[in-house]
């Protein structure tokens, strides 16, 4: 029996070995791009010294982690990451559903498509361009807000790029501006799938539009919403690096409110060259992120097998 199994397997490899040859480049690529860095997490437990090489450097156990968690940094970046992403999830979900409901109300197909494409435009462009757009608005010398909008309202100019207290608000607005066009498409696809019969009979019963949204659209949208939110919660430890790096112009003065784990890791590596600390923070993010994905996926899986990642 056992021999037969092996013989079969060898025969199968002979017969379909070409499939293995085809898949080989991708597997080698993933090994280099994804698996080698996974072995590289040992860096977090070493005092990297390039004269000795990565493998030759001294082991320091959990020193890098101890050092990281002794400082205020670990607390600040964890708090910022969770608060920003939490706010993005809540605000993004509410606004996207609202826009999707409105788009669904537009009866002319052409108009609906047009609105959709225009609202989606910010999602298409890179964060570098977004940083320029925000600069055109908030720049102290020439910015539109300080030069035109605030005087119009009788408010004194604000030093936007020096006042860290303003940035949770600014970054949330920028996030919504850039992403709502995308998330609302997902909800719209789900709303379009709701059977028209519900609405027709509700209209016959004299239900107002408002009532129909509350009693038909939103309850039927709930499964999609729960899945989308859970998947976002699974990624709550990972931030949009571009948003937090480009838009505040990588400014040190704003760091208390704009620094997240991703920017911290980047700065540790590229600015300070502190490999141990930076990779300790990175590993902290990877492991918590991994556990979060596993947990949320298990919940999604119980709700709807097809939508679970695995």
């Amino acid at each position: 029996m056992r021999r037969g199994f092996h013989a079969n397997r060898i025969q199968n490899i002979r017969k379909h070995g070409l499939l293995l040859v085809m898949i080989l480049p991708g597997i080698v690529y993933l090994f280099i791009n994804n698996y080698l860095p996974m072995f590289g997490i040992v860096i977090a437990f070493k005092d990297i010294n390039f004269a000795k090489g990565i493998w030759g450097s001294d082991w320091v156990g959990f020193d890098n982690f101890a050092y990281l968690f002794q400082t205020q940094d670990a607390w600040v970046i964890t708090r910022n990451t969770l608060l920003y992403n939490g706010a993005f999830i809540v605000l993004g979900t509410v606004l996207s559903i609202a826009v999707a409901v409105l788009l669904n109300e537009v009866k002319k197909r052409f108009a609906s498509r047009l609105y959709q494409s225009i609202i989606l435009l910010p999602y298409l462009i890179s964060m570098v361009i977004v940083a320029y757009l925000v600069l055109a608005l908030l720049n102290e010398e020439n910015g539109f807000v300080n030069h035109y909008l605030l005087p119009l309202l009788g408010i004194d100019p604000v030093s936007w790029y020096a006042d860290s207290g303003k940035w949770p608000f600014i970054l949330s607005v920028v996030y919504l501006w850039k992403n709502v066009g995308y998330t609302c498409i997902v909800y719209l696809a789900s709303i379009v799938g709701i059977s028209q019969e519900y609405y027709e009979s509700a209209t016959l019963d004299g239900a107002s539009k408002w009532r129909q949204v509350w009693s038909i659209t939103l309850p039927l949208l709930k499964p999609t919403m729960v899945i989308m939110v859970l998947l976002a919660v699974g990624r709550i430890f990972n931030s949009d690096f571009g948003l937090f790096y480009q838009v505040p112009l990588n400014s040190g003065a704003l760091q208390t409110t704009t620094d997240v784990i991703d920017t911290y890791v980047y700065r540790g590596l590229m600015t300070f060259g502190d490999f141990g600390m930076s990779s300790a923070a990175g590993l902290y993010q990877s492991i918590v992120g991994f556990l979060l994905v596993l947990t949320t996926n298990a919940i999604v899986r119980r709700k709807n097998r097809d939508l679970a990642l695995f």
Partner: protein
Amino acid sequence: MYSNRIYQMAVHLVLIMMGIAAVFPFILLISASLTEEQAIIRDGYRLLPAEFSFDAYMYLFNQYSLILRSYGITTFITVVGTIVGLLITTLVAYPLSRNVLPFRSFLSFFVFFTLLFNGGLVPMYLVYTDLFHLKDTIWSLIIPNLLTNGFYILLMRSFFSTSIPGEVVESAYVDGANEWVIYCKIVLPLALPSLATIGLMLMISYWNDWFNGLIFINDGSLYSIQNLLNRMLSDVQYLQQNSLSGQTAVVSSVPLGSVRMAIAVIGVLPLIAAYPFFQKFFVKGLTIGAVKG
């Protein structure tokens, strides 16, 4: 009926306002790039130029060599990255979709696990710089992103296994075609629409990428257009100091306020101009990858 019309008008009004909010910063950017420098210093950036001027664009035109060069880099990495990315994606996805693939469950897990866990930035950086010495090479702008979204592999795999009839593949096999021939002659042609959609998403991500340039490129002659923009965000005079044309203007005569905005316009314009033509596929690409992506 009357209230219904008011309702429709209200819906349109809100959506029009959202649309204006979406495009407003772009209009401001374009207007700022076309404003005379003194007017900017006096009034700041306005929605319509107070005094119209092409100075910023004339200045950039004189410094064209750097800009053209970055466009060349961006075009090269976008074309090569998209083609190689598509090739690797389908070459992994197709064997995984065949249940005769030896070691199939191991290979599936090998691919899938990369979606769940990563080693982080520092080890990745060291692999490419210390082990493969890709720092300051054009390959560092292409290779790290080839399979960035491993989700596309899963997408193509399920497309192959559901949309390409097993009998067609089997009978081709019986007729003596090998797997490679089946892949080229049957699988890829049937998958063309999906390939186009995923190809578009890859193109956009390569065109917009600035991160690899940020960490791997110090040599300005390898800047993509995004990296040039990124650099000029913090250092407006960069263009002038690194002019390849040898023409050095007097610093005070450079219309910095508008040049800064003009370079961003030049960077984003091609994408926006092409957007109406590909937006249908873009929406499709976003929705197929939506829930799981």
